[in-house]
C-alpha cells in the first residue's frame, strides 16, 4: 500500500499583521450528524460516550478535543475525533471538505465586520456561539472560540478565495489603525 500524505487546503499558511493573526487550522475529522425524525434520544446516547450533548441552535461545545457544532436544523458537525457509534442520526464524513481559518487579535471583529452581515462583537456573539452566514459571497460557518479569537469554516474549494478576502481586509484594517487622526 502506498503511503498517502494528507494535505490541507492552504498548507497551514499563516499571516501576522497589525496585531492580527490569520492561520489555517487543522480541524481533524469532521462528521455531519443529521438527526432522523425522532432520533434525538438515541443520538444523545451515542454522543454521551464523548461527554457531549447535541447543541442548541447557534452554539457549539467542546470536551477533551471533541467539538460539536450546530450547523442547521437537527444537524451538527462533530469535529476533532473519529465518530463513535451513533444511532438515530445519519453520519456523513465531511473531513477534507472544509478549510478552517483562525483569526485572532483585538481587531479581529473589525475585520469580519467588513465582510460578514452579522454582529460578531462579543456583546452579541460571545464565546461558544456559532453562526452560519456569509463572508462576502461565500457561505461560511463562524465560531467564536475566545475573547479575541474566531474561526471561519468555508468549503475547501473556497479556501484560497477566503484567504484572499481576509488577507486584503486585514491589511486595510491594519493600515487604518496605523493612521493617527
Amino acid at each position, binding site marked *: 500500500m502506498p503511503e498517502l500524505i494528507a494535505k490541507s487546503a492552504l498548507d497551514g499558511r499563516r499571516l501576522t499583521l497589525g496585531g492580527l493573526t490569520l492561520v489555517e487550522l487543522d480541524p481533524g475529522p469532521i462528521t455531519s450528524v443529521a438527526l432522523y425524525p425522532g432520533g434525538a434520544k438515541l443520538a444523545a446516547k451515542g454522543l454521551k460516550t464523548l461527554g457531549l450533548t447535541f447543541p442548541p*441552535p*447557534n452554539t457549539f461545545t467542546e470536551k477533551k478535543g471533541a467539538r460539536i457544532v450546530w450547523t*442547521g*436544523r437537527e444537524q451538527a458537525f462533530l469535529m476533532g475525533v473519529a465518530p463513535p457509534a451513533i444511532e438515530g442520526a445519519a453520519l456523513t464524513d465531511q473531513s477534507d471538505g472544509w478549510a478552517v481559518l483562525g483569526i485572532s487579535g483585538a481587531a479581529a471583529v473589525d475585520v469580519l465586520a467588513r465582510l460578514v*452581515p*452579522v454582529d460578531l462583537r462579543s456583546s452579541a456573539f460571545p464565546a461558544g456561539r456559532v*453562526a*452560519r*452566514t*456569509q463572508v462576502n459571497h461565500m*457561505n461560511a460557518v463562524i465560531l467564536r472560540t475566545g475573547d479575541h479569537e474566531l474561526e471561519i469554516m468555508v468549503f475547501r474549494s473556497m479556501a484560497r478565495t477566503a484567504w484572499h478576502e481576509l488577507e486584503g481586509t486585514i491589511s486595510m484594517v491594519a493600515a487604518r489603525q496605523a493612521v493617527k487622526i
Partner: protein
Amino acid sequence: MRLRCPLCGERDRREFYYYGAEDYLHRPAADAALAEWDAYLHLRDNPAGVTRDLWYHEAGCSQWLLVTRNTVTHEISGVELVAERKA
C-alpha cells in the same frame, strides 16, 4: 430589510432567497380537478396589505420560511419554519 429566522435570529436580506406565494405549500392531490391545478400553478393574489410567502435561508440554516408581511407598510409580522408548521 431584515428577517428574524426562527433558528438563526435576525439576519440581513442578502442571506435569503425569495421563492413565491404561500400557495406553493398547498399542492393539490394528483387526481385533483384541472381547474385546481391551474389555480395552484398560475393564479396569484396581488394584495395591498398582508401577504404570506416563502423565503429560503440559503446563506444560513438552509430552512424554508413562511413569512407574513405587509406590502403597504413593509412590516414583517411573522416568520415560521415550514418544516415545523402545523398543517
